[in-house]
């Protein structure tokens, strides 16, 4: 009979020497998809990788850059197309191998390979050079001022380990491949993988040789991570003391968790905006009752719809104050965001009705709204509320709410007239929003633009952002693009999501705006 990894780990940690032996039991709705750090660009996957692996630069709990495996970085003084990174000394991987520039070159080349899911973030890089053991240079196809912000989820693997275990290539996740690196992990991070059963339980223990042991609290000695899908069960597990820390707390349960003795809720604005998209490019909509023309192509109709949405009521009732009403589709972290644009819409049903009248739709029309029901916080309830609000200006909305697996294909195949979408901006820059949501749909840009919207003049401006070195000019271009997006009412913003974490009083942490807990920052009392 063999004792499971969990038991073994529990026995080990209880006898381990060290400052503290604190186990944290962590639950969230979903599990990491794979341990291969470059195979999936996805939240829960990165969250687990962040405990085991490290990027060159990390974002701390306020979203600010902090050195991780790189100690400092700057554009080269000789060549504007080169970034120079100085690497941390004396770092070792969990298996004892030394961390060097070789590993950085290897990891980035791996992350840029065909099977990698991270390659889009690095497509401006043409060459990576190891200058010496602790200096790396990145050469880009033009000056790229925001390159570092694309690196915060780009994890460094050990070249020797990958080669020895036949894991040089990125796991072909979509092709259903299994590699050594997708089920094993060897990073430089603060925690070491002990055991893992996907969707069931993952156990990590503290890396006592971690380079930052004295720089960070490092109070957590063991992490037991269990995904719990059903929201009620997840909250029950926290309330009954079976877990210490949960993500994805349903907004209606925040009060209960906060009032329970020994439990606390912490919140922070999330880097994600929820909005509606309108098919304004089609000649005629597939699922409306207007023959021969597309009511959404009429700007007045879009303005009316924008005005009909009562964002404050959604915030108050559906979100229980856990949202920030939005007037633009980028959250405040993002370069290009302005308070003025974000406050630009107010609810005015009378004026909206007048606009509908002017547009020739005084009697209203009917339309279908496609909405996910398992993706964003209270997504279905928000859509339902919108149905009621649009009914007040005469628009009859048929709501079709479905799982995300059926919802997102509608957007990628442009088969929807009116849809909900949420968008996070990991680069903290507006270019990212424009590239995916505003640019004309093509092979490498505009892949989430399901509006049928194409504006060549705007496309040109969007493309110019990638290589514009003069930040002032670049910011002006961003502002110009936003003003067109706002004036044309391409999207109907709803709100910026707020993140909530529930935890016992023993757990001390701030909420990470990317919803990615980094346990090295956690203090345990």
């Amino acid at each position, binding site marked *: 009979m063999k004792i499971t990894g969990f038991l073994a780990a529990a026995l080990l940690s209880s006898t381990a020497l060290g400052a503290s032996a604190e186990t944290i039991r962590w639950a969230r709705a979903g599990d990491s998809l794979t341990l291969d750090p470059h195979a999936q660009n996805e939240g829960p996957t990165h969250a687990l990788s962040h405990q085991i692996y490290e990027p060159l630069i990390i974002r701390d709990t306020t979203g600010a850059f902090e050195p991780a495996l790189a100690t400092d970085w700057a554009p080269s003084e000789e060549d504007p197309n080169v970034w120079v990174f100085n690497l941390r000394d004396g770092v070792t991987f969990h298996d004892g191998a030394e961390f060097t520039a070789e590993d950085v070159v290897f990891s980035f080349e791996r992350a840029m390979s065909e099977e990698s899911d991270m390659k889009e973030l690095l497509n401006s890089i043409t060459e990576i050079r190891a200058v010496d053991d602790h200096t790396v240079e990145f050469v880009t196809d033009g000056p790229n001022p925001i390159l570092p912000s694309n690196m915060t989820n780009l994890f460094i693997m050990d070249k020797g380990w990958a080669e020895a275990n036949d894991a040089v290539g990125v796991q072909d996740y979509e092709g259903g491949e299994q590699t050594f690196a997708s089920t094993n992990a060897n990073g430089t991070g603060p925690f070491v993988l002990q055991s893992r059963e996907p969707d069931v339980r993952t156990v990590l223990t503290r890396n006592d040789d971690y380079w930052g042991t004295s720089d960070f609290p490092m109070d957590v000695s063991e992490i037991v991570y269990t995904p719990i899908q059903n929201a009620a069960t997840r909250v029950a597990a926290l309330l009954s003391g079976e877990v210490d820390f949960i993500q994805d707390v349903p907004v209606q349960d925040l009060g209960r968790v906060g009032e329970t003795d020994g439990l606390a809720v912490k919140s922070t604005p999330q880097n994600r905006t929820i909005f509606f998209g309108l098919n304004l490019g089609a000649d005629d909509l597939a699922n409306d009752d207007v023959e021969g023309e597309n009511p959404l192509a009429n700007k007045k109709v879009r303005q009316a719809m924008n005005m009909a949405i009562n964002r404050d009521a959604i915030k108050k009732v559906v979100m229980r104050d856990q949202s920030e009403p939005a007037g633009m589709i980028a959250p405040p972290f993002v370069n290009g965001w302005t308070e003025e644009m974000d406050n630009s819409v107010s609810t005015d049903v009378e004026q909206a009705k007048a606009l509908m009248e002017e547009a020739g739709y005084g009697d209203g029309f009917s339309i279908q709204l496609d909405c996910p029901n398992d993706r964003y916080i209270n997504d279905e309830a928000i859509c339902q509320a919108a149905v009621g609000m649009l*009914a007040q200006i005469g628009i009859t909305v048929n709501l079709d709410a479905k799982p995300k697996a059926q919802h997102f294909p509608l957007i990628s195949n442009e088969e929807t007239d009116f849809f909900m979408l949420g968008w996070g901006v990991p680069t903290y820059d507006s270019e990212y929003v424009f590239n995916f949501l505003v640019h004309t749909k093509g092979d490498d840009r505009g892949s989430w633009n399901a509006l049928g919207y194409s504006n060549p003049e705007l496309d040109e401006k969007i493309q110019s952002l990638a290589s514009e070195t003069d930040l002032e000019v670049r910011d002006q271009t961003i502002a110009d693009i936003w003003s067109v997006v706002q004036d044309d009412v391409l999207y109907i913003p709803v709100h910026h999501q707020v993140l909530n974490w529930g935890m016992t009083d023993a757990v001390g942490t701030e909420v990470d705006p990317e919803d990615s807990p980094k346990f090295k920052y956690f203090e345990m009392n």
Partner: protein
Amino acid sequence: MAQNEIPRAPSRFARARNSDLYYSFTRTPVAIVSAAVVIVLVLAALLAPLIAPHNPFDPGTLNLMNGFTPPGEANAFTGDYFLLGTDDQGRDVFSTMLYGMRISLFVGFSAVMLAMVVGVVLGLLAGYLGGWVESTIMRIADIQLTFPAILVAMLIFGIAKGITPPAYRDQMAIWVLILAIGLSDWVQFARVVRGATLVEKNREYVQAARLVGRAKFSIMIRHILPNVLNPVLVIATISLALAIIAEATLSFLGVGAPPTRPSLGTLIRIGQEFMFSGEWWILLFPAGTLLALALSINLLGDWLRDALNPKLR
């Protein structure tokens, strides 16, 4: 029972049985109470547009700010008052429940009807005709039984949703539910009817009818059918309760009635999300109503089985 005699006129036969049933009914308090509950609930559902103070299916009349109003208290923002409170969308729980029960009952009744018609017809054909008809039908029943009802329903729901044009999906959801639940439920009708038919078809009265030259279908419908109806009635009653519960379960799995036109099951699914947060009324009232409805129907089914099967009394 008078199965060995030459068939009597159906009306007298029915009347006689009814009076037996009636006698048993008056002597069974549980049956009386259950029947009363079912009648009240069905009437309330049928008359929902007259009784309900609001129309929860008209989104234009909803005010989101009324959301989460507790029962018997005025809303803090709007000052509106609701007998049983409001749900997360500001819908009056009492009205939504009445309208939701309409959908639940409609889905339940129609699904059972569908299952019964399909099951009885196939069961009669299989039992009476025998041969390849029988083995084909019973093999299909086997395939059907291979899948648990809940999976069959999910399967049909998935396929129907896929082939329905998107514009009609919302309205179609109810019909798809009926189809899904009904088709996952016909086998037990078919099996019982087939079994009973096998017994009946060798009785003298059927053989007599055959000798006089009656057509097959006429014999099936006029002579055999009335004699296999008792077990069918019992199964139908219990299936009705099951169908209403099945609809609720499907809605938990995300394939039930849409939240804009909720059934009792959808209301319970929505309500359970607010169980920990103290808004108990959103769950309790629909759940209590569903329990009362299903329990009463089940109790009636129980009584009916015993009453129609005097051996067990």
